[in-house]
């Protein structure tokens, strides 16, 4: 509703410009807005910027909706009339609307409209142009964003605007950033050394890239000794702070890699750790979970945001039941013969891969990210945590907690523990070990399926998805100690963090090699992993 007056204002300005159009003298010198708009539909991509510049000059704020639609790549024109329209996709249906009024137009055939192409240069111009007008936006968040995007492009005109806007600014963050912009401009352009020195003080402690780069430049080129010293000191303190945040960043990367490892390995920790079955098809259970996500998204293309909530339980059921099938059909008959089990499950893994290849084609499938999982949480200019990683970290911990609960608080858990500790004794007590085996295997596989849903958000959904994670999963389980869930948790996170701290020094290739070498040495020393099982159960 609030946008209505603005839209009206646009319309009026638009009409005004139309009336300006009428005077022929004006027409000869500068083309009017409607003329420019038609020109926009004809001009070649590399000649579009002059037209846009003229539009910005002529149209003022009224042109903003046009620029915004164009930036989003939703600007089309009707081939016949050359009129511009915005094309939005709502619930999978194309909706055509007028750019300036926002009125929904009748739907048109796809061939009657043509898209107005944009490239990086145009996008950059549009973004800057929008930022210039957004400086006086009503939303503080928008003002802040506009200001920070202008920091690298400060000139006298912008500073003047900022100074006038500053008088009525109320938001503290915006005010601070305005001061930064003014100080940056003073430091690089003023000749008054006192003013510049105070600018250095205003700027010290700010984490913005632009501020740091300015200081680097000042330290290199400054002639005034006082300012140079102050700048050096400011730069050192900024760098110290940045280093601190980068440490946090690395830790987060490590934890998030750890959470992926944990998710991939936790199902295996049950089948391999508790049941002692070396399941080479574990990776394919993950893959099935990821494909379930894909199928779910195919079924509900208009509700991608909720698709994961449907996919998680469904993936558990799909992978879980395949797991039960494998256990009943193959592994049960190979009980106590680890080598044969290994070979048989390896065969199953190949069969499942080829099956997926035939059914879904060997190409990767596209799994969309729900909007709430994209983007990042910006804490400051140096530190930002990506949303999808945060969610997956939380999800991994949740799954881990649930699993602990199942194993420790339910009768199934009790049975599982009993069978894994002493199969014959459990049998003698009347536990149906066969059933427990199938349920355990199903549980492990189902959890792998849930991991697949999470991984579909990070990596390729293709026939080879499982292979990429099977080695890592075994590594985590062996390192953590077979049969110990807590061990898997600690192992997953410590391997993740170690990997991320080594990687910047040695590169990704060497980092994973080093981690492997470390595990080999560790296993030599402690063959039973970090947390070996104790007592008679371990025999």
């Amino acid at each position, binding site marked *: 509703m609030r946008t209505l007056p603005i839209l009206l204002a646009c319309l009026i300005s638009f009409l005004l410009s139309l009336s300006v159009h009428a005077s022929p003298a004006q027409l000869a010198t500068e083309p009017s807005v409607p003329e420019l708009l038609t020109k926009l539909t004809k001009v070649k991509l590399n000649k579009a910027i002059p037209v846009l510049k003229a539009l910005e000059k002529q149209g003022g704020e009224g042109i903003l909706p046009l620029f915004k639609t164009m930036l989003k790549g939703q600007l089309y024109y009707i081939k016949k009339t050359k009129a511009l329209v915005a094309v939005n996709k709502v619930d999978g249906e194309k909706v055509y609307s007028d750019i300036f009024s926002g009125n929904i137009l009748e739907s048109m055939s796809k061939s009657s409209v043509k898209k107005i192409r944009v490239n990086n240069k145009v996008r950059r111009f549009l973004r800057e142009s929008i930022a210039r007008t957004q400086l006086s936006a009503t939303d503080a968040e928008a003002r802040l964003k506009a200001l920070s995007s202008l920091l690298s492009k400060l000139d006298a005109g912008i500073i003047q605007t900022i100074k006038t806007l500053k008088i009525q600014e109320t938001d503290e963050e915006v005010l601070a950033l305005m001061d930064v912009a003014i100080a940056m401009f003073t430091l690089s352009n003023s000749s008054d050394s006192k003013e510049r020195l105070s600018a250095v003080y205003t700027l010290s402690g700010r984490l913005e890239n632009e501020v740091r780069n300015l200081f680097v430049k000042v330290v290199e080129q400054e002639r005034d000794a006082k300012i140079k010293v102050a700048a050096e000191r400011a730069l050192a303190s900024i760098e110290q702070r940045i280093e601190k945040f980068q440490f946090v960043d690395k830790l987060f990367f490590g934890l998030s890699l750890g959470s992926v490892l944990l998710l991939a390995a936790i199902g295996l920790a049950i089948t391999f750790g508790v049941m002692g079955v070396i399941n080479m098809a574990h990776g394919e259970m993950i893959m099935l979970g990821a494909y379930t996500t894909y199928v779910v998204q195919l079924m509900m293309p208009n509700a991608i945001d909720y698709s994961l909530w449907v996919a998680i339980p469904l993936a558990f059921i799909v992978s879980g039941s395949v797991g039960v099938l494998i256990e009943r059909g193959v592994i049960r008959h190979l009980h106590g013969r680890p080598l044969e089990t290994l070979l048989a499950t390896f065969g199953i893994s190949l069969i499942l891969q*080829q099956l997926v*290849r035939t059914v879904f084609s*060997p190409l990767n499938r596209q799994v969309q990210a729900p909007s709430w999982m*994209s983007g990042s949480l910006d804490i400051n200019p140096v530190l930002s945590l990506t949303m999808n990683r945060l969610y997956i970290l939380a999800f991994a911990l949740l799954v881990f907690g649930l699993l602990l609960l199942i194993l420790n608080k339910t009768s199934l858990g009790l049975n599982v523990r009993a069978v894994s500790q002493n199969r014959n004794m459990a049998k003698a007590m009347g536990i149906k070990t066969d059933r427990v085996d199938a349920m355990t295997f199903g549980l492990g596989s189902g959890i792998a399926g849930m991991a697949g849903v999470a991984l579909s958000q*990070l990596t390729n959904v293709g026939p080879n998805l499982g292979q990429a994670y099977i080695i890592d999963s075994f590594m985590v389980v062996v390192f953590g100690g077979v049969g110990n869930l807590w061990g898997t948790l600690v192992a997953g996170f410590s391997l993740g963090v170690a990997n*991320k701290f080594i990687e910047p020094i040695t590169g990704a290739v060497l980092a*994973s090699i080093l981690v492997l070498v470390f595990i080999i040495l560790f296993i030599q020393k402690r063959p039973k992993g970090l947390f070996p099982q104790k007592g008679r159960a371990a025999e």
Partner: protein
Amino acid sequence: MKLKKILKSVVLGASASMFAMGAIAADDTIKVGVLHSLSGTMAISETTLKDTVLMMIEEQNKKGGLLGKKLEPVVVDPASNWPLFAEKTRELISKDKVDVLFGCWTSSSRKAVLPVIEELNGLLFYPVQYEGEESSKNVFYTGAAPNQQAVPAVDYLMNDLEVERWVLAGTDYVYPRTTNKVLEAYLVSKGVDKKDIMINYTPFGHSDWQSIVSDIKKFGGEGKKTAVVSTINGDANVPFYKELGNQGISAEDIPVVAFSVGEEELSGLDTKPLVGHLAAWNYFQSVESEANEAFIANWKTYIKDDKRVTNDPMEATYIGFNMWAKAVEKAGTTDVDTVEQALIGITVPNLTGGTAVMNKNHHLSKPVLIGEIQDDGQLEVVWETNGTVIGDAWSNYLPGSKDLIADWTAPVSCGNFNTKTAKCSGQNF
């Protein structure tokens, strides 16, 4: 509905492969070997090329075949296993007696095939962009050499986007390493400081890009315009681009130009966060030309899927096949030596509205296009070379190969002829 479609495709696929296997070998056919992985990691890319060759053969047969004989495909599956490529080549040439081979994707597989194909004097068309530094008498390279892809892309970034800092990121194997060596030498020759070049390698299928992307962000945040030149291969691209999007790196800040990402790779990806990133190829599906429209229509009918896309290696296969067919007709025989000589200088139309010429060094002349990724997964051309660029087998920017040329016509007839010492090194490739 969906299930029915899937079932149908399964049945069709099964019957198609049975047909290929069961085709009775007759003497009055010309045999065409298809050596592309249909299983394993490379199946994702190579299956498409197998289908392209089969489509081309079908079309040629509709036109009456070659020299009055029908063409007969012999499809094998080297299963993304490099030594198996060599074995299957031997099998195809000595047992199946194929007259020509279309195949390979990775450089590793091509290197495995080379000794066999030279020993048995076969003929291979290799349709993928590669690192150069090779020219064999028995191989025709219809993909791009580095000077037809990497170097022009860097030129574009340097001149049009005014890039001053460079991240060369690649997967850790022969193609990225050689290409990056060429690029680094080229950048240094253009006056770029070594401090402004960051080189990074990652393993195959790398999926955790957090720290590398954050390093790139830091490297790019130091005041100079930065671009990433990516030779990251295959599957690893998807998580890489996802991470770029999530960490908020847009194409306007740090553009990524990729040499291994085409329409097919993009079709498995949510492209919204990637809009504006670049790719350099010699062909894009979006190029408007009559030949291209016909090719796309044929492909969609052949594969019975309206959503399938076309890509650069498919165009290279198309050009290679047409050149071979034309050369066979010109030579009047399928004998390898005669066809090899007939191929040099052959011209066929390419799909972007120009003509492809087979040069003396067994490489093609191609236009170089740079495209920006659009939100529909297509690439829109933003820059192209004037006319075509001749493929250079030996890079001019590497110290070891500066003086080498390849020329398979008399009197040189050598794949690595040293112009300074006027000697052929004797090594065949």
